[in-house]
């Protein structure tokens, strides 16, 4: 990391990296800026960057039309619930795969990943019928389960790769000392795996938050999350760039903020075993 370089080279790196970073971030920045413009300013030619009259009216209009907090709360519950449930189910499985590997471990792992390839549209009818039968339509519980199942393979895989990085000698030593399985998991593995678990949780929270097929098709009112909220702003009549921007900002702001605060954890853990 801390390689010595000339100040000139460092300045050059900095300039280039910032330029690229801002370019990549620009669509989001532009959306946020536009959300504070009036509709007329939003389509002004040439485009207005900062020199416009900042207004909150778009947020007021959006809030008046749809109760943001309810959608937000559903998103939090559904994304959070499915992630927690997924981790609870995945930790033992990943542990077993990492520390008691058999010939078939890798096959099972890869098979799990292949279940993610089921095209959602193709099974909408079966799942919808099943949900009616089970009374799960428009319930948060139903969505928690579906999103958990969708993301479970990713969770298992991520955890598996972290657990594998924990050296087996530590475990053997603990076993020699007479540690039980429970102690082994609680006192030795868990602390070592916390960074990995944290980034798994984060990644899956993001994936669940952004899932837009099942969350839209299996909900109506009670369980509708932010993906359903945004579906009512996609093409209203007349000028709508500013309102669309406000609704978009509202839909992505919570996860963006969470992501930024936790990016260290996310970055540290997001390796999928890419690093040995």
């Amino acid at each position, binding site marked *: *990391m801390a*390689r010595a370089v000339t100040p000139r080279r*460092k300045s050059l790196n*900095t300039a*280039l*990296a910032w330029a690229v*970073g*801002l370019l*990549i971030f620009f*669509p*989001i920045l*532009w959306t946020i800026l536009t959300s504070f413009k009036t509709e007329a300013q939003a389509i002004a*030619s040439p*485009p207005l960057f900062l020199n416009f009259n900042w207004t909150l009216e778009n947020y007021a209009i959006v809030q008046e039309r749809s109760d943001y907090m309810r959608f937000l709360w559903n998103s939090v519950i559904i994304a959070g619930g499915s992630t927690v449930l997924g981790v609870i189910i995945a930790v*033992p499985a990943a542990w*077993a795969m990492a*520390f*008691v590997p058999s010939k078939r471990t*890798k096959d*099972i792992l*890869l098979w*799990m*990943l292949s279940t*993610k*390839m*089921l*095209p*959602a*549209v*193709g*099974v*909408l*009818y*079966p799942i919808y*019928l*099943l949900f009616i039968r089970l009374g799960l339509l428009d319930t948060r519980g139903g969505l928690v389960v579906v999103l958990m*199942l969708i993301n*479970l393979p*990713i969770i298992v895989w991520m955890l598996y790769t972290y657990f594998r990085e924990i050296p087996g000698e530590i475990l053997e030593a603990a076993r020699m000392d007479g540690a039980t*399985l429970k102690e082994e998991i609680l006192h030795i593995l868990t602390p070592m795996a916390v960074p990995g678990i944290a980034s798994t949780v984060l990644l899956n929270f*993001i994936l669940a938050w952004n899932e*837009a*097929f099942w969350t839209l098709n299996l909900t109506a009112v009670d369980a509708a999350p932010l*993906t359903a909220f*945004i579906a009512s702003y*996609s093409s209203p009549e007349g000028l709508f*760039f500013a309102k*669309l*921007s406000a609704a*978009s900002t509202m839909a*992505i702001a919570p996860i*963006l903020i969470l*992501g930024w605060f936790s990016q260290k954890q*996310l970055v540290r853990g*997001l*390796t*999928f*075993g*890419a*690093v040995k």
Partner: protein
Amino acid sequence: MATQHSRSVARLMMAPAVILLLGWMLVPLTMTLYFSFKKYLPLRGGDLGWVGLDNYIRFVSSSSFWPAVQATLVIVGGVLVITVVLGILLAMLLDQPMWGQGVVRILVIAPFFVMPTVSALVWKNMFMDPVNGLLAHLWRFFGAEPISWLSEASMTSIIMIVSWQWLPFATLILLTAIQSLDSEQLEAAEMDGAPPLKRFYHIILPHLSRAITIVILIQTIFLLSIFAEIFVTTGGAFGTRTLTYLIFQRVLESQNVGLGSAGGVYAIILANIVAIFLMRIVGKNLDA
């Protein structure tokens, strides 16, 4: 090393995850298979009896099938190439010493947090709109005729949008991999006077191969099923109808569940072919 006892405990620990996923795979799969052999038209009264392989034959012999397979592969392939190449360059850049590295990293990963529907809406309206879009303004500023992105360059546009969303993911994984590279080795090579390109080919790239395969594997899984980006932007027009989108049109727009289900089975087969192919590579890399 593992005892008989620990093996059975391990099996027990894996059981919930395996059983749940087995259920999640088998229940819809069985139902899809069941529907795929039926003439099932919800708007004409639902189940109209068994039709054998009719749906399967009809789905592949339809004039839209091969173009859809092709569109799927082009989008997946295009996004993979762009995200991997740019991801490597970006990761190498971010690995350099600089001021404000943390902030730059935040800027770079931000698109990953944006939901696909939102990113498609924002790109479609605020950037690619041929009249009021920012890109149109930019083109006009340089005296060029604005491009109607989503019709004239539909594939490019979709690949662009999706790549924007997935570039952060690729960059992050590749960055972690680069950071684990032994810097002494690099410095030694530098001392030996190896030119940068040679260092890249002989040291960095081999080191990244594992990370690259993983990026390809994970992204492929997600990219094969992209839907919102197409639904919002082109609605499948202008040659952007992927296999997933074709199934959507069969099931929801044409309300032909039998035909759509047969399409679903084909999509699963295609996904598995790709998966086996990928896993061969990854599997080798995981062992190495």
